[in-house]
């Protein structure tokens, strides 16, 4: 029973109660993934599993046998950040920085969802194969990631830099 985290194989826990979030934070020392509610309401624990965003607090680690997890640590580092991480800095898309890893991982997954043509509540034509990006699409799709410091404008601005089509 192993899981790949940022390309490194790790043992799954013997205790089936361990969430993926707690495996990352408490056992693997990857505390970049944050715990804000432990009940799927805040998005701070968002990670990518095989490229899709999930809430790691609602995932039991043992369910992820053989899967590949990317956390904020796997996207980039302080010295060598991913372009989205750099954009968050440039646009001040955070203040305290606690929800930030979840926002960034969520945005990575969200961008792929749109590119795949998955509609959202604000998509005007849900049958369209190509969904035009807009700030409201970003806002709607990022609404599961709470930010209490109120960095919402900067977060949307940062994400928009990866989406030239979202720039209004």
């Amino acid at each position: 029973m192993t899981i790949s985290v940022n390309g490194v194989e790790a043992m799954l826990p013997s205790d089936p109660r361990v969430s993926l979030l707690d495996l990352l934070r408490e056992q693997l020392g990857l505390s970049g993934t944050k715990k804000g509610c432990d009940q799927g309401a805040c998005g701070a624990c968002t990670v990518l599993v095989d490229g899709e965003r999930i809430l790691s607090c609602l995932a039991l680690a043992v369910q992820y046998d053989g899967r590949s997890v990317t956390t904020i640590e796997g996207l980039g580092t302080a010295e060598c950040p991913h372009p989205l991480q750099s954009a968050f800095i440039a646009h001040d898309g955070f203040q305290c920085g606690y929800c930030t890893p979840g926002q960034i991982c969520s945005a990575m997954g969200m961008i792929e969802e749109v590119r795949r043509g998955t509609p959202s509540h604000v998509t005007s034509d849900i049958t369209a194969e190509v969904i035009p990006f807009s700030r409201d699409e970003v806002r709607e799709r990022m609404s599961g990631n709470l930010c209490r410091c109120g960095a919402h404008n900067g977060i949307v601005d940062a994400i928009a830099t990866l989406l030239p089509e979202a720039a209004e």
Partner: protein
Amino acid sequence: MSIIEDTKQLVQGAVMAGMSKAIALAPDRWIPGGTPDPLISHRHGHIGRPTTRIDGPLKVAGAAPFAAEFPMEGMVYAALANSTIAKGRIVELDTRTAEEAPGVIAVMTHRNAPRLSPPPAFMSSPKAAGGDSLPVMQDASIHWNGEPVAVVIAQTQEQANHARSLVRVTYEAEPAITSLGAAKARGSRTAMFMGQPLHDEVGDADAALAASAVNVDASYSTPRHNHNAIELHGVTVAWQDGVLRIHDASQLVAHEAWTLAQMFGIDEDKVVVTSPFVGGGFGGKCLWQHQVLAAAASRMVGRPVRLVLSREDVYRLVGGRSNTEQRVALGADPDGRIKAIIHEGVTPKTAFNAMPEPFILPTRSAYASETIKLDVQAVELDMLSNTFMRAPGESVGTFALESALDELAHKLDMDPIELRIRNEPEKDPTNGLPFSSRHIVEAWRAGAERFGWSARKPASGTVRDGEWLVGMGCATATYPYYRMPGGAARITLTREGHATVDIAAHEMGMGTATTHTMVAAERLGLPLEAVTFNYGDSTLPGVVLAGGSQQTASIGASVIAAHRALVKELLKLAGNDSPLAGLKPDEVGGTDCGLCKLDDPALYESYASILGRAQRVSVCVEASPSAPMEIMHWSMHSHGAMFCEVRVHAVTGEVRVSRFLGSFDCGRILNPKTAGSQFRGGIIMGLGLALMEETRFDERSGRIVNPSLSEYHVPVHMDVPEIDVIWTDIPDPHAPMGARGIGEIGITGTAAAVANAVFNATGKRVRDLPITLDKLM
């Protein structure tokens, strides 16, 4: 607080009042800020340049260590069991099954917890940090619904969580006061806040109101709120060689260390609190029971302990903002000159804290009126102690006051901005002090222009876009300049021209580390990369609260004092061979990695040269600023003109905020990039206050029934439009760096601006927050 405590506060208050009078009358030059900070005249340096956060790379990489993320050898995990009654006694406490559960090391209860003194409650002495003054797990008595009754310590979090569910408690309930109605029926008392009664009277406001040609008189109510920082309250603690080390998320590391030392009966220097990053504070990251319980548990089991509260635990253990019932009555003459202001009401607190929600504060300095009557009555409930949350007083007080102003403008058929400008006071209307710097009119004019206020239709319910009713509203934001006593800073300057500034301050996302690196670099004449700003550690100098929007002033004044001491020392070392020989500290400033004469920069010597000649590797000084007498000499307040456009669905009553502008007058803006984020953040929390936030308190049981982020709604991305912020950038000549605090003002005025826009859109006046759709259908 008890009667004795109240009397003590009254006596302190009387002494303070006498002192205030003397300080008010003293010459400006005797007062801190009487001579403007020389940095105010620096217009082309680091200050004022939008500067990216220095801790940004760590935060976006998930590499900034928060309190619950410090690894410790042999660490174990804790989980709490909480009471389910509001008042009474534990009669049976069965922990046997929990103790026998796999992985459990111990179960701590009042029976076996280390003996501790009760915490000195915040504001009861200079370094007190307690959210209340109740003993922590020392006896069988229960004081609120949710009070911790047991701490399970286990090898893993999962084991601790499970074992907590096995703790069995039987209570003997006693009658508890858990409804505001019942508490009011028992009588109220004039609330005391920071040693002074929350009561002001100028003239006879009741008579002036009755005699006014036009008046409004309405009641407003605001619910309880919780801070809901996204980081859960968590601590990692250990006892190492008799020293209690706490990695915490804290807004008051030095206060916390002192208070814990009092509780554990040890020397202050035997408690070390560090808090390099705080995942949001807003008033909620102070000292509550969890730090104490974790420290006690760690001492009991002899191992490092990590205790992270669940989101529900945060609601049970960490106080929030109390609800308020307010009355605002305004009397005016037909041309809109206000003749009477009455702002009064009631708010609940507990018998164990000193924090009545002081909702009249914004009204004290707001408008010129010949008569003013302000009064807060406090009642006591059996509940978790309430506490300060972003802009205590002003946040909910401005909702009532600024809604009433809008009602008055409507009744007078007058533009609400013109009504406010017409009533601009010349001096502080309640204490008569001159304003240090007040440019609210400029903020109103600039904001109105930018927002397109002239397009607003004064008649409500007249603008429609399909199914949406569209309206505009405005309100004044206000928050005082504070500076609390206790600041101190240390500067170490090396021969290589590197400076380290040490102060026990805090970074909760406000941009403290970045901004004060900029300010220190500017003051010392160094590049940003030559300055290290150390903070978030109780062993550093200073007792600094990150609260009351006063941290920047406190750090600023402390660094000014330390800098003066540094210059004095450097001039001494420079001696008679220096171009600076014979100059006094006040004649000299930092520039270009050295010192120069302020009015003749050609007289210059570099730090390297001074220290080199003196054969010194470095020089280190520490100093404290003088007491914050400026706040008793001038009326020092920031202001904002808040503009809101809403769209209200004509069928469902759904409110969408489509545009928002805050136009601020907060003195000089030090770092426009992080300041803009502080303003926006405050405004967004204000949108939550206006439209959705409410802690639901069951008045039968005294239990909070929505203790989660799925049931307590905060604004999400889709609720937040582009928030536009602008500022006057006019320095306050009497504040360090010319800057007044900016952390809280954004939440003030916002709810009223939204409510006033909703009225303009729909003709419906909602006086009870939050403005949910049921109130508009």
